[in-house]
């Protein structure tokens, strides 16, 4: 039994009832959790590609930025229990990106500079649920938060919103990405508290 440290409390702010998923607390910070060094890819060398469809499709930074964009305000939920409310982003919807590819696959592996990967069902990337975001809080997305562009899939735990994303590999099976391989849930729905494999 650990002794109680008198007066110690988790840093937390009040959350409106029902606003955050079970087991989460609200923070005004934006913690940086990285599994490796921050990549610094020059925009001239950046591309986003989708492979595994009938033909591979790739966008340079300029081509990517010429696509229609959306701004959105959303809550984000980290598996480490912090939630951040009303975060604002600008990005290109995955609906737009995936519409440029012919494919039959039901699953995708998002991959990033530095080797990070995460897996998602394609259905969770469609229907206005996912973006490749390049702006946060009204300004360019900082490198430590995944800039120049990151995946943004706010309805799942935030480890699925791969920083420094460079593309998707479409596939027929749902194979675990980086954290999923080390014990985190294959799907990661915060509202069903799917933190770890087997939850």
């Amino acid at each position, binding site marked *: 039994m650990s002794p109680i440290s008198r007066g110690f409390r988790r840093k937390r702010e009040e959350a409106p009832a029902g606003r955050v998923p079970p087991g989460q607390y609200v923070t005004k910070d934006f913690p*940086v*959790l*990285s*599994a*490796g*060094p*921050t990549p*610094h890819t020059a925009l001239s060398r950046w591309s986003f590609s989708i492979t595994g469809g009938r033909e591979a499709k790739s966008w340079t930074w300029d081509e990517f930025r010429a696509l229609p964009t959306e701004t959105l305000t959303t809550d984000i939920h*980290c*598996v*480490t229990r912090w939630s951040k409310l009303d975060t604002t982003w600008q990005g290109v919807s995955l609906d737009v990106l995936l519409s440029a590819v012919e494919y039959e696959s039901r699953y995708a592996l998002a991959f990033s500079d*530095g*080797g990070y990967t995460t897996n998602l069902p394609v259905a969770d990337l469609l229907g206005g649920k996912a973006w490749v975001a390049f702006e946060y809080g009204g300004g360019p997305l900082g490198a*430590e938060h995944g800039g120049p562009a990151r995946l943004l899939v706010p309805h799942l735990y935030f*480890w699925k919103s791969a920083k420094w994303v460079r593309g998707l590999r479409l596939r027929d099976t749902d194979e675990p990405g980086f*954290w999923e391989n*080390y*014990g*985190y849930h294959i799907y990661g729905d915060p509202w069903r508290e799917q933190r*770890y*494999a087997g939850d």
Partner: protein
Amino acid sequence: MDDAAVDDFAVDGNAIAGLLASVFGAEMTTAVGTCGSCGAVTVVAELPVYLTEIGTVVRCRSCYSVLMVFVSVRGMTCVDLMGLASLS
């Protein structure tokens, strides 16, 4: 180490001395790890370590391949050492 790779978010093997001792049952910061990818040999204390609440990732100093991963799953520490060729 490559200047471009200097990363303020990394600590080093010293920072996980307690975690390593609890997992291996011995003082490990002076142990020497051999990278399974590039063969680089480095004392654990000098390995870049990404220490966060989601998990702890220990990487090779030379090629940044993942050497060790520690994740706390429902209070139990899960350890993956597959990136190491050896640790002695």
